[in-house]
């Protein structure tokens, strides 16, 4: 039995390359007009995901039966002095993440079919999804840091391609440009960090410097390097990695770069969650590096907390149903990042899985609701939908609860925050919880409660949409309540996570904050307390500084504009000036001088012998005169 499981674990590369074969078949299917079957495309994609699920389960079984063992298969990619290998690496973290993402991809492929079946880009969309599956599986199964970075880069490219899926919109093009450039900057930071690791390992040990980046023994190698270099150097290297991770996991203010386009259908909104999760997964893989120094862990906690605070704050000012949800998702990614800094390796993995499923369910609710109300997604114009869409409203409450309970009220998280011993951090975290609950409640109340604020006809939601939402919700809740407790025993701990006894006061405080937030939201948004709403709207009016601060594009646009216009543009202008007025001018002057000499020489060549004689006499006279003058001058000086 064990041998069979090992055989499957060794053959995991099939899972990686299967999406590529599926893409080929879809491409042929779409190219040949006599086949062109959409069902074939769908079934192939689903089959690929099911195949991955089966393999992931087998890998998990192998890891359970062989807890201390990992499976690694490599081939040579590049030989530059020391060889760089690419291959697959199976440990418990990768096998469980493979399972989670396979299930996620399966449901995405299944449920987006209905939304996109009449679209002319149907096959293209499924090709994108399969490419995304390839890139995600590649990242999960990577055997070393360089390979992971390559696949993370590929996911960034696919994100960009998904953003320019329909490239007609100028805003979409601009947003995509910002996204890819920022993403590229993140890649360079991560690559620089990795190369710096190689550099310092090359200084201290002449051989095997690239083997350092392999995941088998990564923790040990990083520890060894840390003991050899001074802390400031190590922290500088890690800071590069942290900046890269910040961009990749869409920490503040980088979250805004991936959802600026006007087209806000469901698949665009799945993208930021996937991208954020990719960044967090990379952080898991580089965990030994980021957990080693107190300075770095504190930085991560602060970055995560700022992200959580900023995006929960931003979500308050939004009126678009899906944008509020995305900001909440970014805030939760910030919380997960923070928990990594607190040393909660497995709890944060659980939080990530919960976020993936809960957010998928909530976004599908949002999509279904907006479809039902004729694509109206301004929550100010909605209202009273609970009676017409009761299942949606119920699922929305359950999804939000699963997210808050599963992520924000994690026992270990609250305990570690206490242990961290900084009152400001606990206080800020409580504000985050308050803002998240407030935003969720406000959104629920404005969409589902009160009376209708606009005359919109509500269509029925199909069973397939409901089944999609419910599937994700069940997965989310089951992860929170059923698997949650056993999960910690299951995941491979690079650094074992101790269960810290939670102080009841923090839990009580958190629950109190949640109740307060819900109460205030009720007071503000349920009639007859419209006076409060008006006050609140006044505070968040567009002219107000508070509105600007709570407007996501403000940060990223200001930063990019500052870098582009204030820093880069003057340098470009200066260089252009040098190019035109110095370099080109030199060439011009040389050419002109040559021309003058040429013209003069031409004029001298008039064919008249007397003229030549005259020129010769003139030149000779000049030479003699200069010589005589020089002689006289030197004689006088000598005297």
């Amino acid at each position, binding site marked *: 039995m064990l041998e069979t499981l090992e055989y499957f674990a060794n053959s995991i590369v099939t899972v990686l390359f299967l999406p590529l074969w599926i893409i080929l078949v879809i491409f042929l299917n779409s190219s040949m007009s006599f086949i062109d079957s959409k069902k074939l495309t769908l079934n192939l994609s689903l089959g690929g995901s099911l195949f991955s699920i089966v393999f992931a389960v087998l890998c998990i079984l192998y890891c359970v039966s062989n807890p201390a063992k990992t499976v690694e298969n490599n081939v040579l990619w590049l030989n530059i002095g020391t060889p760089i290998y690419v291959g697959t690496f199976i440990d418990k973290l990768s096998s469980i993440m493979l399972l989670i993402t396979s299930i996620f991809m399966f449901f995405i492929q299944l449920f987006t079919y209905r939304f996109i079946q009449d679209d002319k880009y149907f096959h293209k969309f499924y090709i994108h999804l399969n490419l995304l599956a390839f890139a995600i599986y590649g990242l999960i199964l990577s055997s070393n840091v360089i390979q992971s970075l390559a696949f993370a880069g*590929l996911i960034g490219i696919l994100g960009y391609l998904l953003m320019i899926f329909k490239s007609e919109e100028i805003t979409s093009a601009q947003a995509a440009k910002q996204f890819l450039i920022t993403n590229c900057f993140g890649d360079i930071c991560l690559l620089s960090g990795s190369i710096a690791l190689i550099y310092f390992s090359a200084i201290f040990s002449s051989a095997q410097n690239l083997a350092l980046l392999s995941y088998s023994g990564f923790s040990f190698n990083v520890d060894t390097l840390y003991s050899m270099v001074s802390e400031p150097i190590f922290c500088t290297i890690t800071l590069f990695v942290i900046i890269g991770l910040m961009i990749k996991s869409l920490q503040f203010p980088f979250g805004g770069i991936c959802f600026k386009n006007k087209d806000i259908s469901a698949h665009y909104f799945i993208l930021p969650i996937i991208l954020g999760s990719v960044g967090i997964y990379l952080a898991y893989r580089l965990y030994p590096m980021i957990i080693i120094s107190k300075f770095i862990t504190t930085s991560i906690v602060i970055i995560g907390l700022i992200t959580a605070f900023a995006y929960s704050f931003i979500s308050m000012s939004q009126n678009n149903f899906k944008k509020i949800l995305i900001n909440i998702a970014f805030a939760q990614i910030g919380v997960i990042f923070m928990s990594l800094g607190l040393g909660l390796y497995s709890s944060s993995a659980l939080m990530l899985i919960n976020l993936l499923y809960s957010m998928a369910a909530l976004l599908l609710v949002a999509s279904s609701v907006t479809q039902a109300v004729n694509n109206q997604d301004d929550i100010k114009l909605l209202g009273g939908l609970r009676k017409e869409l009761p299942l949606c409203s119920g699922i929305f409450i359950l999804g939000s609860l699963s997210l808050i309970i599963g992520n924000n009220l994690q026992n270990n998280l609250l305990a570690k925050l206490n242990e961290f011993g900084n009152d400001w951090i606990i206080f800020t975290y409580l504000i985050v919880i308050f803002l998240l609950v407030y935003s969720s409640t406000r959104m629920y109340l404005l969409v589902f409660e009160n009376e209708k604020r606009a005359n919109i006809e509500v269509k029925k939601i199909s069973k397939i949409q409901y089944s999609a939402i419910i599937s994700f919700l069940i997965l989310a809740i089951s992860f929170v309540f059923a698997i949650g407790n056993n999960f910690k025993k299951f995941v491979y701990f690079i650094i074992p996570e101790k269960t810290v006894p939670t102080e009841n006061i923090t839990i009580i405080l958190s629950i109190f904050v949640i109740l307060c937030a819900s109460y205030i939201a009720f007071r503000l948004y349920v009639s007859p307390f419209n006076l409060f709403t008006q006050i609140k709207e006044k505070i968040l009016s567009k002219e107000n500084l508070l509105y600007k601060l709570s407007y996501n594009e403000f940060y990223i646009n200001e930063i990019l504009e500052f870098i582009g216009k204030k820093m880069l543009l003057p340098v470009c202008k200066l260089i252009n000036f040098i190019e035109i007025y110095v370099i080109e001018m030199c060439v011009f002057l040389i050419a002109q001088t040559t021309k003058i000499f040429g013209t003069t020489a031409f004029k001298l060549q008039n064919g008249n012998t007397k003229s030549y004689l005259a020129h010769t006499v003139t030149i000779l006279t000049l030479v003699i005169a200069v010589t005589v003058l020089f002689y006289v001058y030197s004689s006088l000086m000598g005297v």
Partner: protein
Amino acid sequence: MNFLSILFLIFSPAIVALLLLSPIFPNNNIKIRRFSKGFSITHFIYSLLFLLYFNPTNLGWSYQKELTFFGSSWINTLGIRANFGLDGISLVFVILTSFITMLAIIAGKRMIRTKTRIYYPLVLILQTAVLGVFSAKDIFLFLFFWLLELIPTYLLINQWGEKTSKSAATKYVICSFLGSMFLILGMLILYFYSFTISGVLTADIENLSMSENVFAMWFQAFIFFCFLIGFAIKLPIVPLHTAQFTAQNNSIAPVSMLLSGLLMNMGGYGIIRFNLGLFPEVFDKFAPILMILGGINMLYCTTLAFIQTDIKKVVSLYGIAQCGLILLGLGAMTEVGFEGSIFHMISRSIISAGLFMLVGSIYLRTKTTQIFTLSGLGEVMPICKNFGIIITLAAMGLPFLSGFAANFIILNGIILSDIEPQGFIVTIGAISALGIFLSAACIFRLFNDTFLGSVTSKFKKLNNKENNIVILRKPITKTEIIVLASLALAVMFLGIFPNSILDIFKVTTDVIIDFMKV
């Protein structure tokens, strides 16, 4: 293996060119084009056979052959011989030359509408000249082909370019010739001083060397810089880039592909073969200066590219900026950096050729290269956009494409450098990373502003079937698909299997670096 003749490989394009120009060949544009295309494809396959039978572990030259004239050497009395041969480095450049020339000939179908009878022969003569440069084993033979290249290049820029192409061609030839004067000076000094030491008149690259024990360092440095100036105009290195830059801007797309894809490599190859191979001690001393020049090249050209409004200028500045990275890799004085530089030359050539092809396709349909007038072309030229994505992403150095492998190897080479102080290397590494990021940003801006967004109303007509102008009716032609697909496949192949190329010249580079260290 006997059927592989290096002389046939080098001279067959020139012979075919003469045949095409001769009165015996029918004066029919289609026949000329098809014959040239057929020949260039055959030539490329033939060059691949050289790779197939090449032994990468061979330390010296392979396929050596001397061209004799009635049994005697070229200029026998002066010890100058027409000796050809290929090692790992020259072989990859020979194949690349054959590949890019083939694509330039294929691309000519749509882009060269006038004077077809002389376009194809000129390209083939240029191919012979470039192949001669890469396979010459004698310095004067090298110089002969180096100067021979100027004639077809001048005519190619002059005859099919824009309004200012005539002055650009003159500028290119004069500047190149000025550089060649330095080259000739360096070669003559090297040749005669080598004779004074050994007493043997020879111009064979293998037998020429300058040792610190015999010649003073300043004297060696003088000859070294004579060579460097000659090659710097071709590579190019800022501030000697202006001729190459103007020539690329004012040429038609296939010619720009040749300029950027072939001729710029000649400069890099020259630095490796002469500056590095013949003056290892001087190179070792001046390596930091080369790295500084490389850094300036990158930052100068990328910042200049940001402010350009002409997409052709952006592409040519991108190519020149990437040459800075090549210098950085060479200056690192490590095997990894050296291999990375050669790999980058190959990768950059293919990417630049692809970008020029894209620009050519756009110009053919829109009659403009001004970035502000172009927008949303992806809507009317969707296939072009898809190829554009692959080539642009490769230019940006993103994973699974050739640019990533090239950048990665060079950056590794830089940080593993032994040059003191270490702070210098760290600074250069940071500059390289910044340069890579900026060049990625500027090339990406080009793609984004050209292909994405909403298309302007006058360009919507590109898809209009009722349009009377045949050439504008199609968003892309089969010829363009073949050229762009070949380039896209090449960048993908190099990105996924970089070792397949590195293995070819690894032994040769190791020998050169070992020689330097000794």
